[in-house]
């Protein structure tokens, strides 16, 4: 939204915004905690409030057409998009294209935890969606694997929902998420945090029953004799994000294989001229305000690119 608004303010008259969900704002809608807006709006907002500032603004700009429930299935290097929308398949050709597709969460499989594959293993953001959007509590005795911001925030969220959070297990020697989240979401509720530890095995046939936790050395190798068990019915995986860039890859944009970010000569640019990427799909940001700032730059860059055609 920030990129579209900025492109419009920089003179672009005909903008189409495609959103796959049924409302604008993406992950902000489920991020009901505070901490947004401090740098951009100079006040403390929740995720939905932050999103609403932009949905209100974008709704007043006639040059921006918003298409919800629109799922892009194909993209070419000439910026031809094919997208699905309820009841139709549409094709559009863009002169300039901005991708703001965000991230996916890393999964249990990507951090190689041994054991069974029972129900009860959720990525932290999925659990956030279940609680905050769907009103469902995924479990009652929770172990958080990793200390990403969403995992820390969800530790508090589960406590507020009446669940028990047994521990946060982080393989590194410090929190992956912001310290403020460690303080207000974990320490505030006396949740034990184990740094330099990892979950080494998951037990349970139908549902998670317990996990093994073991201390690791600097090379992340297990230290023999340090293993202990934690009884739980739910594991939250919060071990990082991967930029969602399959569409631009389809179009032929060069990606960094390790991070899945576009290989980029300059902020928001890709190997295809006029195809821009902003926000978490360009690089993983800590703070939404920084995403907004760089996305506004992206909108301006797209507007300037159009003038060169």
């Amino acid at each position: 939204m920030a990129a579209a608004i900025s492109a419009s303010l920089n003179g672009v008259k005909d903008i189409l915004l495609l959103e796959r969900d049924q409302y604008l704002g993406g992950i902000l809608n489920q991020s009901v905690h505070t901490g947004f807006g401090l740098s951009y709006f100079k006040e403390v907002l929740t995720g939905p409030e932050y999103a609403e500032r932009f949905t209100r603004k974008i709704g007043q700009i006639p040059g921006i057409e918003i298409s919800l429930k629109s799922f892009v299935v194909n993209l070419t290097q000439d910026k031809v998009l094919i997208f699905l929308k309820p009841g139709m398949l549409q094709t559009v050709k863009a002169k300039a294209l901005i991708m703001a597709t965000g991230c996916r969460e890393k999964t249990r499989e990507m951090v190689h935890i041994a054991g069974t594959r029972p129900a009860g293993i959720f990525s932290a953001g999925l659990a956030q969606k279940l609680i905050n959007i769907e009103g469902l509590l995924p479990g009652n005795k929770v172990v958080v694997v990793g200390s990403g911001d969403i995992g820390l925030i969800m530790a508090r969220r589960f406590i507020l929902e009446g669940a028990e959070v047994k521990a946060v297990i982080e393989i590194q020697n410090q929190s992956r998420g912001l310290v403020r989240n460690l303080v207000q979401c974990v320490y505030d509720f006396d949740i034990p945090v184990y740094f330099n530890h990892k979950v080494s095995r998951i037990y349970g046939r139908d549902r998670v029953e317990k996990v093994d936790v073991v201390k690791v050395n600097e090379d992340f190798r297990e230290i023999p004799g340090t293993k202990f068990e934690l009884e739980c019915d739910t594991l939250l995986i919060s071990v990082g994000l991967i930029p969602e860039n399959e569409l631009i890859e389809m179009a032929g944009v060069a990606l960094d294989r390790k991070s899945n970010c576009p290989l980029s000569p300059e902020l928001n640019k890709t190997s295809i001229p006029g195809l821009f990427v902003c926000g978490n799909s360009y690089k993983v940001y800590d703070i939404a305000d920084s995403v907004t700032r760089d996305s506004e730059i992206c909108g301006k860059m797209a507007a300037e690119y159009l003038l060169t055609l």
Partner: protein
Amino acid sequence: MMKNLTCIECPLGCVLSVDVENCKLAKVSGNKCPKGEIYAKAEVEDPQRIFTSTVLCAGLDLKMLPVRTNQPIPKNKIIDAGFEVKKIKVTKRVCAGDIIKKDFLGLQVDLIATRPASAGK
């Protein structure tokens, strides 16, 4: 008595060194902005947090409505607040900022909606 706090006012997370005398803040250092000093004083004398959660809706286009307190509440009331919001059901359309529960928990703060919800579904 000296102790360390981590400021939670912004993502920087300054480590504050505070001098506490008789449960009152005597001196603070380590803060990079004035917010740190206000936070340290509150954290030592009367820790406060903004409470955020979701409440159940019926007959609206959202199943859960995100809410928050319009002012911070005492930290030791957060768990109570978590139980209290479960008693609330929203059945009428709301705008972001509308009061969902006045004088929430008798704390002289209001619980407000943080997202609009309209009739439907």
